[in-house]
């Protein structure tokens, strides 16, 4: 069977070779990179601009951003017909292609985040390594491994004097500052991949990269809020259980108020970027309708008829307007914030969907339509990769990675917060 045939329904005249070639994984790709970029920008708000209220969530979102990084690449690998050749993007990059820069931008970004993490956690690495070293021969095999790991992670920089730590802090600030434009570039350029396709009437707009960045920050912040709340709730449960033995742990009420404070502050930034994203998207829509070039006839049918529910109800209504109201109503509660941010995530996901799938919902002949039927139960590798479960796998992997990362770089409960 031809690639794309399994999930494409054609209606009226569509060129024989046209299928929905870019599917759920290409929806996941900008969604996941958006989360990476958003999470990083959130952490930088604290490190660079000194937004003190975000202190708690800053380190958290930095580690989370690192956990999301490999996952931004995953949908691409799952989408490629020849994933084993993916490395060629770095071997023989063809820079006239928007995709060619991916390897380089992505790696640069990964290195910046990794370095920043190293500076943030260096003291912890050194302390832990020294602690384990003191155990000497009494180390268990696991401790031996951890000792080795942390020793390597220090990169031989054992100095944790005040002067050295100050330098660390400066480096973090520098990297966080450097990271913002790179994160924006990483994601803005994901928008460029679509915006520069002149063959696609829906995609081609110079606003695409900007829209992508704004919605990326929105989704990134939203995901950080949710994940933060979830981990805080877990901590509450664990602490409540542990407090019997360790009375010095913070009480549930203390945690709760801290949690609400962080969430309230973060949602303010969320709303700000949300407004920006919606403004740009509406501008794009109005402009297309007003200028009404050749492609508008078919675009109008796609936007106002075929995809009406997905665009105006799910994306703008449920995903933008409703959470907007929920977040702006006075006396925000954690529960309301979580509900709103979940909706925002759905909204951003639908936006990606409507761009990627919506852009392929009509034929380049402008005289026919294509419908994407998301494969749910996979009956072969292809329908798994580019179906519901493939997407689910991509969605869940960052949490597995995050869990693994926090084993090495704990996000909460460090003895002393230096940053």
């Amino acid at each position, binding site marked *: 069977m031809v690639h794309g045939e399994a999930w494409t329904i054609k209606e009226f005249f569509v060129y024989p070779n046209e299928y929905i070639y870019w599917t759920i994984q290409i929806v996941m790709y900008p969604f996941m990179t958006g989360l990476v970029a958003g999470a990083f920008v959130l952490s930088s708000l604290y490190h660079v601009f000194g937004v003190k209220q975000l202190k708690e969530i800053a380190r958290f979102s930095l580690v989370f951003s690192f956990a999301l990084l490999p996952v931004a690449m995953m949908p691409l690998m799952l989408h490629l017909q020849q994933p084993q050749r993916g490395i060629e993007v770095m071997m023989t990059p063809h820079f006239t292609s928007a995709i060619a820069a991916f390897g380089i931008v992505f790696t640069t970004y990964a290195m910046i985040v990794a370095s920043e993490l190293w500076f943030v956690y260096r003291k912890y690495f050194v302390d832990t390594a020294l602690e384990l070293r003191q155990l000497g021969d009494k180390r268990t095999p696991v401790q031996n491994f951890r000792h080795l790991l942390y020793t390597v992670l220090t*990169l031989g920089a054992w100095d944790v004097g005040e002067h050295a730590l100050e330098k660390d802090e400066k480096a973090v600030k520098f990297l966080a500052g450097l990271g913002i434009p790179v994160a924006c570039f990483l994601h803005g350029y994901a928008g460029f991949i679509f915006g520069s396709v002149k063959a696609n009437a829906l995609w081609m707009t110079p606003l695409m990269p900007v829209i992508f960045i704004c919605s990326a920050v929105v989704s990134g912040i939203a995901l950080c809020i949710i994940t933060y709340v979830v981990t805080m709730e877990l901590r509450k449960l664990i602490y409540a259980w542990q407090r019997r033995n360790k009375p010095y742990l913070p009480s549930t009420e203390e945690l709760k108020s801290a949690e609400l404070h962080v969430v309230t502050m973060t949602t303010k930034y969320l709303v700000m970027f949300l407004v920006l994203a919606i403004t740009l998207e509406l501008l794009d829509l109005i402009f297309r309708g007003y200028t009404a070039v050749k492609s508008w006839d078919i675009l109008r049918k796609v936007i106002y008829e075929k995809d009406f529910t997905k665009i105006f109800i799910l994306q703008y209504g449920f995903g933008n307007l409703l959470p907007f109201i929920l977040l702006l109503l006075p006396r925000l509660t954690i529960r309301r914030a979580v509900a709103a941010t979940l909706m925002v995530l759905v909204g951003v996901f639908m936006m990606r969907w409507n761009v990627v799938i919506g852009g392929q919902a009509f034929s380049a002949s402008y005289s026919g339509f294509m419908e994407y039927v998301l494969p749910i139960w996979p009956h072969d590798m292809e329908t798994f990769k580019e179906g519901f479960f493939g997407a689910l796998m991509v969605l869940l992997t960052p949490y597995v990675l995050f869990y693994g990362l926090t084993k090495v770089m704990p996000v909460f409960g460090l003895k002393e917060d230096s940053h």
Partner: protein
Amino acid sequence: MKNHVLRPLFLVIGVVLLFLAARTVLVPADFGVHERGYMYGWYRKGNEAEWKAVKVKYKTVAYCKECHRDKYDDIKSSPHANIECENCHGPALGHPDDPPTLSIDRRREHCIRCHARLPYKTSGRGDIRGINPLTHHVEAECTMCHYPHNPKREVKK
């Protein structure tokens, strides 16, 4: 102790150098910018030859008439003169060595490509003598009555 701040940078540089070394090994030597410049001519030169080496399957009438001169003359004096032998007899490939015989497409579906009547006056199709394949001797192969090399001639029974 010396400045530790640059350690990650050294690590990065090391990785980049390692990568560049790997690149020299993994990228074919003939990969580079060719005639059409970087935008349109950034490729592995050797691939051109690979495409040129694809096997030719349709050898055209010039090849067929070497041996089948009688058939060639037959069809050349008929309204079907412009139809290449291989359109019905299949690609010659290595014939007569490989395959020794070709399979002839005698199906109705093959004839009605042109002879299913379509009433398109503004297209050449409207001028071709045609039938309604759903009603015109549905059970029979066209060649039972029509001699394909010269449809004007009676079929030799």
